[in-house]
């Protein structure tokens, strides 16, 4: 199998709290990988480790055959990312913000307009980013991630703060990216119905541990075998997480 992102027992420990524990992910090239988990499960921490924003306590990962931390800059050249909340220069307009990223990535000027158009921000490009609504900031963050059509996209809750039509628009955009730009998408979201519509593969994280990894069909099969409800992703996800929480509680009592 041709994996573009593989992590090997990736672990992040803070003083007395383990955010990610032995997470081994396998993201296929050209696929959309949905990363699911309740709040505080360790999704963002794992994504941050992949981007070098936080150092792993243990474990390693390779992205497109490159190793972290030696190939950090080479890895970042290939990744468009959007983590947690949008990041922008409040004193600059949307267009100027993207121009800063364009210059760092050494892309042609036209890429800024293309990214603005892709996320529907062209007419607001000259407005100061601090005056954008939450949804517009979210779109600006996405435009920054999509700038230069990177081969890998890491998106953490990209539809947060968007209205229903915005969610629909971004969902369709993300879904079309692998075929349009031949890219791989690692996306996390709380909206399970949304991931169900776009993802090829799923990874379910709970309390820092990877409970499941595989295709949606594999998940359905696994859920049926374990006697869980397998009608939709939400039911399967909730059953899996509840079972894990119950066994954690049991272990803690022992």
């Amino acid at each position: 199998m041709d994996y573009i992102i593989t992590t090997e027992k990736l672990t992040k420990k803070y003083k007395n709290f383990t955010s990610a524990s032995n997470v081994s992910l396998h993201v296929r090239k050209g696929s959309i990988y949905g990363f699911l988990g309740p709040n505080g499960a360790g999704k963002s921490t794992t994504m941050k480790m992949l981007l070098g924003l936080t150092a792993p306590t243990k474990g390693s990962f390779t992205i497109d055959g490159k190793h972290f931390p030696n190939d950090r800059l080479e890895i970042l050249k290939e990744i468009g990312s959007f983590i947690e909340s949008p990041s922008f220069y409040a004193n600059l307009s949307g267009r100027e913000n993207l121009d800063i990223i364009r210059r760092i990535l050494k892309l042609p000027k036209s890429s800024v307009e293309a990214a603005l158009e892709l996320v529907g921000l062209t007419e607001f490009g000259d407005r100061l980013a601090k005056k954008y609504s939450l949804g517009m900031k979210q779109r600006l963050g996405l435009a920054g991630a999509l700038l230069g059509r990177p081969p890998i996209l890491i998106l953490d809750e990209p539809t947060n703060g968007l209205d229903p039509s915005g969610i629909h628009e971004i969902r369709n955009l993300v879904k079309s990216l692998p075929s349009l730009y031949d890219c791989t998408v690692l996306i996390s979201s709380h909206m399970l119905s949304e991931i169900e519509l776009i993802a090829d593969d799923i990874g379910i994280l709970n309390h820092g541990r990877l409970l499941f990894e595989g295709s949606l069909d594999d998940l359905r099969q696994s859920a049926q075998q374990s006697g869980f409800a397998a009608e939709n992703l939400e039911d399967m996800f909730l059953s899996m997480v509840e079972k894990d929480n119950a066994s954690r509680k049991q272990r803690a009592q022992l």
Partner: protein
Amino acid sequence: MSTLAIELRKEKRTGVIPVLLAVGILGAAYAFVNFLVRKDTLLNLPLAPMDVLLTQLYGMIMILNMFGIVVAACMIYNMEFKGNAVKKIYMLPASVPGMYFCKFLILTILLLIAIAIQNLALTRIGMSDLPQGTFEMNTLAAFAVYSFVTSMPVLSFMLLISSRFENMWVPLGAGVGGFLSGMALATSKSGLLLIHPFVAMLKPAVTMSAQPDSAVIIVSMVETIILLIAGLWMAKHLRYE
């Protein structure tokens, strides 16, 4: 070079460039007005005319420069933290120490321009208001370089502090605290106190001679370089979490 161009673009609407230019202009205006109003009193002091020109006006000019540096250093990093922009920079193939160094360079050049404007005013005053034949261009140039070199530790220190704290009030407070403690310690004869960046900057203002003190120059240069290296190291190794 491209990192410097990018940093300059980021400064748009932050006020960093206008603040230090305004400090230069205000310092020059203060020198003109002060000499216009107090010319006779100043020239009757028991000091050489060049010492009067350089030391009697420098106190206020230095305080303006100090606050200009403190405010500009706070603003130059505040814009990185305000919209969480620095997080995006960490996720891009950009050199974070390179960004730090370019910010240092921008502040240094702006301070240099401010000091140049102030010294142009002093040159004009010296040529027109000092007694015939007493104005010495070399002494003025040497004092200008001296005031620039002794200001650099504060600039290096303030940039380091502002790069480490997301809340702008922390570096601003450190700047005000540095100024107050520097004022209290500047007249002390102890050479050890020169480690305090604000004391080094205040030194030329508390002496009555326009002759640069080589010990102060050496300590200032070493301090500037050490603080710059510390800032670059932190930019490289202490990541956003």
